[in-house]
């Protein structure tokens, strides 16, 4: 098990290895990774793109959760690539209903489990996990998610954020970052990315966290923590998409790391109202490096990049005070 909390060795481990410094130099990282479950609950043969960040997310979630779960996915890449009849990649109970109702469907399962346990109709209590894309979370599924979080069902909602509607061919969502090209923001997104974790935190649920697949130990730890907490929790995980962002498939993990190191994505958790940064990059990378690695930002002028950098500097100062 990965030890939660303030153990010196662990903190040191995370601050070095997960920053992408060479894993061969960090004994702790290797040890912790060895503690991650080898069981594959999301099998090969799915239809995801080569280098798909969504699938890595699902794998990491299931490695953290183990078998005793029920997973809900709304419409999106994850659903389409994993369940074309008559095949499925899921080795855990899984259900899809519609695009905008993962929150509500998960509420229903969670409460059904509660009452069926009480009535002795089922024996064990699986954790309900919704795994939804950014479109199904910050846009069309927002209402049902907000309702579910506010009601506080025992469930974990994970937003797999690849910052646009990738399933339909890269259209902008509320999670698309400022400046990014999508087919429906051809001149670049002209609004800032919706701060969904902050909105979720405003629901005063016990646990909200951000994560990225590029720092798997941090992510797995957060999923485990969320599952152990009774009530509604929310994790927003940045999952780079080679197809939608325009970078070669082998760079999926690298891009996630760059996003964090450049300050485009901050890793933190809010446990019972208490905010804590869980990872501070050892060195701040200029955002230009992150932006220039992706086609969706290729059109940005120096001026715009400067503006983005200034915005990041401000947020960085706030986050890592």
């Amino acid at each position, binding site marked *: 098990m990965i030890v939660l909390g303030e153990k010196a060795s662990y903190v040191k481990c995370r601050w070095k290895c997960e920053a992408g410094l*060479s894993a061969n130099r960090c004994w702790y990282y290797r040890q912790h990774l060895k503690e991650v479950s080898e069981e594959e609950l999301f099998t090969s043969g799915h239809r*995801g793109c080569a280098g798909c960040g969504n699938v890595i997310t699902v794998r990491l979630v299931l490695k953290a959760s183990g078998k005793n779960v029920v997973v809900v996915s709304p419409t999106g890449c994850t659903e389409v690539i994993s369940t074309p009849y008559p095949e499925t990649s899921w080795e855990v109970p899984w259900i899809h209903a519609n695009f905008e109702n993962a929150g509500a469907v998960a509420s229903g399962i969670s409460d059904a489990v509660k009452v069926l346990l009480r009535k002795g109709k089922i024996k064990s209590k699986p954790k309900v996990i919704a795994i939804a894309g950014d479109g199904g979370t910050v846009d069309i599924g927002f209402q049902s998610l907000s309702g579910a979080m506010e009601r506080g069902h025992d469930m974990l909602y994970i937003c797999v954020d690849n910052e646009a509607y990738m399933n339909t061919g890269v259209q902008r969502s509320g999670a698309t970052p400022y400046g990014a090209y999508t087919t429906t923001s051809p001149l670049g997104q002209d609004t800032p990315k919706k701060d969904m974790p902050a909105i979720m935190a405003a629901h005063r649920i016990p646990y909200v966290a951000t994560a990225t697949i590029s720092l798997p130990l941090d992510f797995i730890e957060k999923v485990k923590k969320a599952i152990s907490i009774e009530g509604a929790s929310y994790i927003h995980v940045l999952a780079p998409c080679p197809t939608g962002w325009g970078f070669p498939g082998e760079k999926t993990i690298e891009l996630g790391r760059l996003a964090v190191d450049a300050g485009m994505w901050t890793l933190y958790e809010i446990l019972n109202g208490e905010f804590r940064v869980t990872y501070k990059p050892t060195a701040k990378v200029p955002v230009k490096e992150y932006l220039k690695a992706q086609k969706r930002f290729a059109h940005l002028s120096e001026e715009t990049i400067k503006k983005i950098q200034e915005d990041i500097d401000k947020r960085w100062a706030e986050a890592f005070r």
Partner: protein
Amino acid sequence: MKIVLEPGTSLKNKTGGWRNFKPVIEMKKCIDCGNCWIFCPESCIRKIGNKYEIDLDYCKGCGICANECPTKAIETVLEEK
């Protein structure tokens, strides 16, 4: 027709055919860090003791494993067609 699907049935769909490049591990460089395994989107890198094996039936050749290998033990080579 059943209204549910049996678990893990996508194993029938061998996605190895999607590949242009294939990863090759040079075992003596491997330090057993687990990076290739944890990041593989195809769940097709398996731990065998302290070594790793890539199931080419499913590997789509994305190259994440090679990119994330700290010792450059994995190389991607053009698939022979």
